[in-house]
């Protein structure tokens, strides 16, 4: 921290909140709220005379409320920058601090929060994590029994800069505890609270046990665990060392802690899995290794930064294996536990990676983006033709890349567009197109796959990231599925235009699959949601038309679900097999006029009628088995 503050090209803005993030990669406009410290940063020299004079004491959050601090304070001795601030909730306005400050005149009670706008090239988010409050688990008695403490409290109690100068005492009688129990997985790996593993606690409790044992070899420590997880380099050796030092490891999650009300000693009830016996052991003090959870304002930050969250609330990375430090939004990166629970080495690695990724942007004159961006034909937009923009494209964009100013046609901010195609498919006027996935291109593909015996074919619309990968996996895993499937790739289920599906049925397709990512896996933040809404609408419409159930199928299939892809396709094939061919053909003919009615405007889209002419020639050639010149 101190090094970072000394670096002339690093500007540390402490006590500042990000209010708003606008713009795009390389050109962010970030609004910061510099909170009022009531102390002038350029005058305060951090001497601390004001704190000595202050008569108010409140619990010090940094010391886990185990020690007091004054109403004018610095959070800790190593604070950067070393500038005091006044906690206005605690201050009684006695102005003793002003007196103590004297000649420096650094204290200014009239200070207000300041909003600052900065031009930012790239953003690294490193907001860290928070702790699960174990007092909601009544069985462990945290908050009721004074000698049950959390790992963070233990950290302060055993720290030489902490409130007891490193002398480990137990809260009830300030004696040095001789017999300690550490309990792992408090709240984590627990479906009732935090279902995931917190990653750091196993190593953390081993570290604490070794430190305490080094300070006092007579202390008796038992670690209760479900599984000890020591997967990284040197971790298992560290675990061995702890065992060799005489630290007891007992497998078995405690179900109850009770207290002797006279001595405040604690009894831990747990099954010793190795013995198959229930044990009830007495300890002087118990430490709970509480679960790692997202910051309380993680949801708020997620909407400020416009980055999605994974299940569990952590920020979602672009790709879990290949781009773990990138957010789905270009120019925003993650470092450390805000993206998921991780230990110090992993956080440092991710932080360095994020910094170098951000550096790439700062050192480029130009920035390459995906070429599949959306483009507007302004003359087709309803703003031009009807005088009022409908705004559906703005609603559909997960990135806020579509802009409608006044009565002008919609405009795409190309640098912000990620190419999901949501706006393209949503536009009722067909006024937007997606490069490399134009209506004409996709139409040609649909026509080609349905050229021959369309009633036998199953047209599968797959999203690039998930269901296409699922189909790939089904193939490489040799899962057998119907050979009548014809896959068409689009970037996201949001791009699966109603027109394509009408066209497929108009051409006589036997069945259509509408597939994409699961909502939490979508690579375009909320692209899948847009696709899913449309799919639900279509399902309702086709039901009303009287289409046989199963001829239009919606399925969310991840890239790891090759078996599901094969199963869904086989089920669709079974629907077709169950239908007599004449009945199927009759149904197709019956619904054709309705499809044609809905496709009336489609040939007017630029390029589409040419594509239709071309694909008609192509279809003819395929059916006659001829080459076309």
């Amino acid at each position: 921290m101190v090094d970072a503050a000394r670096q002339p090209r690093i500007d540390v803005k402490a006590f500042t909140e990000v209010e708003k993030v606008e713009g795009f990669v390389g050109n962010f406009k970030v609004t910061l709220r510099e909170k009022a410290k009531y102390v002038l940063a350029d005058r305060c020299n951090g001497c601390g005379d004001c704190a000595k004079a202050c008569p108010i004491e409140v619990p010090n959050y940094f010391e886990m409320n185990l020690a007091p601090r004054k109403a004018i304070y610095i959070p800790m001795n190593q604070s950067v920058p070393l500038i005091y601030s006044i906690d206005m909730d605690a201050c009684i306005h006695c102005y003793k601090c002003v007196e103590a400050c004297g000649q420096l005149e650094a204290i200014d009670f009239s200070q207000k929060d300041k909003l600052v706008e900065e031009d930012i090239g790239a953003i690294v988010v490193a907001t860290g994590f928070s702790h699960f409050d174990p007092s909601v688990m009544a069985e462990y008695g945290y908050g009721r029994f004074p000698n049950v403490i959390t790992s963070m409290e233990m950290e302060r109690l055993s720290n030489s800069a902490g409130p007891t100068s490193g002398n480990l005492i137990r809260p009830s009688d300030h004696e040095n505890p001789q017999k300690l129990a550490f309990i792992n997985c408090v709240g984590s790996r627990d479906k009732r609270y935090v279902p995931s593993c917190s990653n750091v606690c196993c190593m953390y409790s081993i570290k604490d046990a070794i430190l305490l044992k080094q300070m006092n070899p007579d202390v008796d420590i038992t670690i209760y665990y479900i599984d000890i997880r020591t997967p990284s380099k040197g971790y298992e050796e560290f675990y061995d060392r702890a065992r060799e030092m005489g630290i007891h490891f007992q497998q078995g999650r405690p179900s109850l802690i009770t207290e002797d009300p006279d001595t405040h000693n604690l009894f831990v009830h747990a099954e010793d899995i190795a013995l198959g016996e229930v044990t009830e052991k007495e300890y002087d003090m118990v430490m709970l290794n509480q679960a790692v959870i997202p910051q309380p304002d993680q949801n708020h930050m997620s909407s400020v930064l416009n980055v999605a969250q994974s299940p569990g609330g952590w920020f979602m990375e672009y790709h879990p294996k290949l781009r773990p430090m990138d957010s789905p939004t270009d120019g925003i990166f993650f470092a450390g536990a805000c993206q998921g629970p991780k230990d110090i080495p992993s956080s440092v690695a991710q932080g360095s990676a994020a910094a170098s990724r951000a550096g790439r942007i700062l050192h480029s004159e130009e920035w390459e983006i995906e070429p599949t961006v959306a483009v507007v034909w302004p003359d087709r937009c309803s703003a031009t033709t009807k005088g009022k923009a409908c705004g559906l494209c703005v609603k559909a964009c997960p990135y806020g890349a579509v802009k409608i100013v006044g009565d002008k046609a919609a405009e795409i901010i190309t640098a912000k567009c990620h190419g999901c195609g949501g706006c393209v498919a949503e536009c009722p006027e067909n006024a937007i197109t997606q490069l490399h996935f134009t209506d004409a291109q996709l139409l040609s593909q649909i026509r080609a796959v349905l050229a021959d015996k369309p009633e036998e074919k199953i047209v599968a619309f797959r999203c690039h990231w998930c269901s296409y990968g699922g189909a790939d996996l089904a193939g490489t895993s040799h899962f057998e599925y119907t050979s009548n499937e014809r896959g068409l790739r689009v970037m996201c289920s949001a791009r699966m235009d109603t027109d394509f599906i009408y066209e497929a049925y108009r051409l006589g397709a036997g069945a259509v699959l509408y597939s994409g990512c699961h909502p939490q896996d979508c690579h375009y933040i909320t692209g899948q949601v847009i696709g899913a809404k449309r799919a639900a609408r279509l399902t309702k419409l086709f039901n009303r038309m009287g289409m046989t159930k199963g001829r239009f199928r919606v399925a969310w299939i991840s890239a790891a679900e090759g078996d599901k892809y094969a199963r869904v396709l086989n089920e669709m094939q079974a629907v077709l097999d169950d239908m007599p061919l004449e009945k199927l053909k009759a149904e197709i003919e019956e619904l054709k006029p309705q499809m044609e009615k809905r496709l009336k405007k489609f040939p007017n889209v630029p390029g589409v009628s040419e594509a239709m002419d071309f694909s008609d020639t192509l279809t003819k050639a395929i059916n006659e088995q001829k080459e076309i010149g």
Partner: protein
Amino acid sequence: MSHASTVTSFADEVKAIPGGEHLELCYSCGTCVSKCMIQQKIEPEFNPRRLLRMVMEDMKEEAFNSPTTWLCSECDLCYQACPQQIHISGVINAVKAIAVDDGKATILHTAKVNQQTCVACGLCAEACPYEAISIVQAKVPFRGMIQVAKVDPGRCMACGLCSAVCRSTSISIPDENTDDAIIGNLWDWMLLQEVED
């Protein structure tokens, strides 16, 4: 290379019965065992964690012969404490149901009805916390076709409540805990209290 089919394993049989679904989520943390009052006060061999493991490992006979299958009182203390939210008594009940279907009798004693004296008043059926007693039509020697109480051995937990409420002493648990034995034990205990005072 051939493997035994896992499709019709014991675990699947148990999972198919409502209550047994989440069996495989168990990671053997032992919370249920240390929460269990039956394990701590009555039967040290009672161990829900091990029963779950037996089911997962296809150890059918061992599961049927385990006291865990038969002694659970469904107090559900373990269900509240289970971090994986497995309805353990549901799993145990599923194992019990399969055992009964397989013709396995409970290792517990079962309440016995004296059909010669039973008057089918239904008090026992009302009192039974396990809904193990019903009043049925049966042919009884010397009495003909009459209504009598009938005990479902799969459900009876041998608690003795029926015996306590029966006004014609027609139902009881046939074991060493006869009324006389219990009253004798009570006397011994009260005498002991007097000495201590």
